[in-house]
């Protein structure tokens, strides 16, 4: 019996169609990114770190918070690949678990920032006039603060915790997306198909979310991939200062903080490896984002 489109839901043919679309976009993306091999390297590193975050914690040699006083402050060796910290916890295991923590924080933070920023920008651009003015003034004031200082102040006021780091990331990042979406929507607002939709009786919300928004997705991906790296850096920075994730939770910034005072004693491995992973991730996401810019920039399509 023939099902109506509304009733069909998620069926095999629909999945097959989505898969084909994904494959053809990926192939196109690869073709364009081949010109820029660095971005493929970046993409590879990001993929590796994401897999590390998802699967890694199941295979670490030691539990991340297990402190073994007999093996305090050991340099890297065959039993402890990255050494141990002053409480005897294996650094390699902690770094792998921290990957999950950091990437999750950054992912949720950026997704939240995208959601809120996009809505903000959509409403601001769509309704125009004084609504736009007021909303942009709010963003101006928010962006007047040096970013880290804004992050620190919010984190200080809310209290140091992982959850508050995510909130900080959302607040600090959403202006970027708001402005991005706003400029896109301002130009799209005048298109003919919007007029046509209006004429057939399309309401405001439907217009915004079903007609304008899908055309704005490309730049969001580019900005998002650049943003995620920066968000990991910001989350780690907050934790390093002491206003973010608290020890003994495994998080790259926390680990650097714990290892920092041992740097002058020569125990470099405690702060080196977590920082290395932050550096790799930020670098990779920058390379990936630059590469994606070539692929998803609407001018190329």
């Amino acid at each position: 019996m023939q099902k109506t489109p509304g009733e069909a839901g998620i069926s095999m043919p629909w999945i097959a169609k989505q898969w084909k679309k994904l494959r053809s976009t990926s192939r196109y993306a690869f073709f364009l990114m081949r010109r820029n091999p660095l971005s493929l390297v970046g993409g590879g590193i990001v993929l590796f770190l994401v897999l590390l975050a998802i699967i890694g914690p199941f295979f670490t040699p030691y539990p991340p918070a297990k402190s073994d006083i007999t093996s305090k402050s050991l340099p890297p060796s065959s039993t402890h690949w990255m050494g141990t910290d002053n409480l005897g916890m294996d650094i390699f295991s902690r770094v792998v678990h921290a990957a999950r923590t950091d990437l999750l924080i950054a992912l949720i933070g950026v997704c939240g920032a995208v959601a809120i920023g996009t809505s903000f920008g959509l409403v601001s651009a769509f309704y125009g006039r004084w609504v736009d003015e007021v909303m942009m003034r709010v963003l101006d004031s928010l962006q007047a603060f040096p970013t880290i200082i804004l992050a620190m102040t919010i984190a200080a006021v809310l209290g140091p915790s992982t959850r508050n780091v995510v909130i900080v990331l959302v607040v600090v990042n959403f202006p970027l997306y708001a402005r991005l979406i706003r400029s896109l929507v301002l130009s799209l607002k005048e298109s003919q198909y919007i007029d046509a939709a209006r004429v057939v009786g399309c309401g405001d919300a439907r217009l915004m979310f079903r007609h304008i928004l899908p055309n704005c997705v490309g730049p969001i991906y580019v900005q998002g991939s650049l943003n995620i790296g920066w968000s990991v850096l910001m989350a780690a920075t907050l934790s390093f200062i002491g206003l973010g994730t608290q020890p003994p939770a495994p998080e790259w910034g926390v680990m650097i903080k714990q290892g920092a005072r041992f740097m002058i004693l020569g125990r470099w491995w405690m702060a080196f490896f977590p920082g290395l992973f932050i550096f790799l991730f930020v670098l990779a996401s920058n390379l990936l984002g630059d590469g994606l810019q070539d692929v998803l920039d609407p001018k190329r399509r």
Partner: protein
Amino acid sequence: MKVWFYILRRMVSLVFVMGGVLIIIFVMGHVIPANPLHFFIGQESDEAYVAQVRAELHLDDPIWKQFGFYVSDLLHGDLGMSWSTRNPVAADLAIRLPATFELITVSLIVCVLLAFPLGVVAAVKRDTWIDHSARVTSLLGVALPSFWLGLLLIYVFFYRLRILPPPMGRMSIGTNIRQVTGFYLIDTLLAGDLDAFGNVVRFMVLPVTALSFAKMGQLTRLVRSTMIETLGSTYIEAARAQGLRKWLIHYRLALKNAVLPPITQIGLIWGNLIGGAVIVEIVFAWPGAGSWAVDAALAGDYAPIQAFAIIMAAARVIIFLITDILYLFIDPRIRY
């Protein structure tokens, strides 16, 4: 005339932006259910005293009235009291701010002095090893966490090589400097104390490197790309066709026009350095306003960090305004 209207408009918008900044900070301060009374009263204070303190702190007034008092206090220079140091916030800030500004200013100077020549040379000698190394360094610099870089520098230069001092502030313990400006580099020179000057410089090397490295990469990239763009323009082509010598073209014609966009970036970079300075101060135990604000925040004392945020936002906004106005005067094209 148009120029003055533009400046006026910008100043008005500056007032609005600062107003928004104050509202944001005020809201943040009142979101937390902290009781500011505990600074003033103890367990045994009687009802009358508590009521008096509440009246003085305007705690029973409506929120918008409290905001009014807050702004008027600010305009009179009262930034509140820090209960962790038992000093007025403004006094603490005045002591700690010069250290931060010295760090930022020196970092900015280093950044500019290194980035401009590097960017220009990288553009002039495109696709050579100089160019590639400049691009790689700038790519790496943006991704490098400044606190990680600082720690690595400490390990290499202090622990391993022993040529630079430990991360313990601005100078060796026991060094005496007569404070005139608060900028130790200047004060030691004013006093003619070259030993102290050398000491201060040595303590400054690593923090400045850690702070400026990332921004240097950005600036180099920008100088390089503007220089490349300028070198490709028609009037340079004409000059080349007319047979002018290479160095004349590069360094007299192209350079003057290529440096304009990067110069406006300097204001932006200064603004970013403010944020980065906080982290570097913590890593190197630099006695600046950033580390002071963070220490207070970690102790639950919010007045310092709020005052710090307001001051830094104001500084940044003013610098942006000055940069824009400067650009207006430098580049005649955008005036008309």
